[in-house]
């Protein structure tokens, strides 16, 4: 499996689409910082806005920028990555050169799931480091302090990252199944992105849909994970209203887990039995 992992990883970092995903993410973060610098320079270094920018770009507050970007885009990036990772093997008919080399087909899919998680972890880590460096650079330009290390808390950072990971794992698993069933990168991406939106709308319109679909359960888990005290009670109350009844943390965990593992297992069974008759 180690050699298969190395083979898949080589493919991953050489694939132009994945390099594109990296550049798009870093580009959006860069644009955010450039915008802040531009406005600061326009408003003047002594302005109130410039002072706000100094605070925002001060480490570790500067990490909020990539966290916001990734919370909005993380699941889409994972959908595109996973769909391309599996779909490209169908499009280029490369399964036929890979599959006869190993006894177990499932090895390929398991490694692809592991690589997807690794890629997304790296993307998040590099985005955070990039934002931290940009923050330092911006503060050098707008004349603020470089960092405020006392404010940095690894556990707080971890807490913010968990919901991002959970979203991307759920939707990349569903994308894996759809891409495998349709044998198409485009279908995987379209269903992943459109499905996410449709799920959200359906969950807000129907209480039954809310209970079946993963979105509100993810929100339930996030609320339990991220918030404390009154804020937590308030958020959970709103979520329970959407469900139409109180839903326990365990139920949400089971539903979300079922989406993740169910999609991967069904995908594996499908892949194991499917004919590779070419394009």
């Amino acid at each position, binding site marked *: 499996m180690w050699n298969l992992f190395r083979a898949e990883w080589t493919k991953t970092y050489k694939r132009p689409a994945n390099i594109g995903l990296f550049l798009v993410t870093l580009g959006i973060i860069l644009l955010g910082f450039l915008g802040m610098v531009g406005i600061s320079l326009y408003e003047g270094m002594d302005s109130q806005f410039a002072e706000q920018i100094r605070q925002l770009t001060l480490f570790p507050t500067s990490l909020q920028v990539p966290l916001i970007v990734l919370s909005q885009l993380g699941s889409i990036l994972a959908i595109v990555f996973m769909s391309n990772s599996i779909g490209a093997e169908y499009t280029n008919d490369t399964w036929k050169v890979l599959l006869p080399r190993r006894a177990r087909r499932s090895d390929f899919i398991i490694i692809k799931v592991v690589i997807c998680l690794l890629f997304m972890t790296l993307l998040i880590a590099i985005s955070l480091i990039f934002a931290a460096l940009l923050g330092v650079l911006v503060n050098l330009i707008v004349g603020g302090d470089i960092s405020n290390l006392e404010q940095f808390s690894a556990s707080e950072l971890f807490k913010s990252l968990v919901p991002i990971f959970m979203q991307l794992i759920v939707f990349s698993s569903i994308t894996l199944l759809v891409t495998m069933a349709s044998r198409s990168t485009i279908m995987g991406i379209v269903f992943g992105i459109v499905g996410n939106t449709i799920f959200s709308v359906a969950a807000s319109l129907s209480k039954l849909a809310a209970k079946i679909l993963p979105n509100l359960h993810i929100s339930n888990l996030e609320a339990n994970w991220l918030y404390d005290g009154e804020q937590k009670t308030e958020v959970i109350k709103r979520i329970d209203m959407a469900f139409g009844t109180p839903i326990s943390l365990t139920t949400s965990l089971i539903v979300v887990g079922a989406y993740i593992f169910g999609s991967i297992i069904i995908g594996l069974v499908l892949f194991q039995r499917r004919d590779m*008759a070419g394009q």
Partner: protein
Amino acid sequence: MSGIAITAEGLTKVYKNVPAVNNLSLYIPEGTIYGFLGPNGAGKTTTIRMLLGLIRPTAGKATVFGHDILHARQNIAPYVGAIVESPAFYTFMSGLENLRLLARSGGHDLPQARFDELIEFVGLRGREKDKVKTYSLGMKQRLGVAATLLNDPKLVFLDEPTNGLDPAGTVEMRNLILRMGQEGRTVFLSSHLLFEVEQVCSNVAIIQKGVTIKQGRVRDLLAAEGGPGYAIEAAPFEKAMAILQEIPELKATSFDQHWININAEPQDVPQVMRKLVQADVDVFQVVVRQRSLESLFLEITGNGGAAAQQPLAEVVVGGR
């Protein structure tokens, strides 16, 4: 030859009620270069994909080196290499990177020397670090051959390996196949190019509409289907033809109203000539006609007629 490389019994694949391969039987001795012949759509690629475990058979059974293709892939994968249809690679990577990736996908971390050896073998030295998207079709085919040999397989499947190659590329590929055979590998060569198969294969199977029509050693098949004969140039043509057709065992035929083909043993030829001459027929030439795999194929797949006239120049040994 030490054993049997491939067997198939009643191998069948049906797509939406249409059989792509129908009750196919194969028996391929180890160490042979085996030609798998059939017109386009005969089921050659489907058969290869089934033997490689890419497609599940609808019915029947097949083994590779004695191991069931469905349930003992762990005993088959390490000994098999294949090019299925057109070569497929990761075009954003170099030839060398593709080879390394494919080796690792099969669980092998090969030393650089092995890649150098294979690159040399297929004649890609100097281009191995270029991206595959810059390769010609012939180079991709040769890279495909290198990829099949990564794990030093005992059995190599080559599915139409000369498709799209120019004449020089075809000759290179033929030489590569012969070298694989000389190294003791079993080569399963699927093709519809009969001349190519006749050049390199010792054994063949001919399939049509998914069914095996003939199977065996090339020279045995040619001998059994009539063996060598003679082509006679005589005038008047109609009179000569009528005389020869009076002797049924000669099986006199003509495709061009000029040459008459007969099947006869050498000792019978003088008597046949005498009969023609005594009937005032002028005999201009008698040449040995060597039967080709192509004429055999066209005859048994029912695609004779006009197409079968074409190889006359090739099959006449001697000539004017």
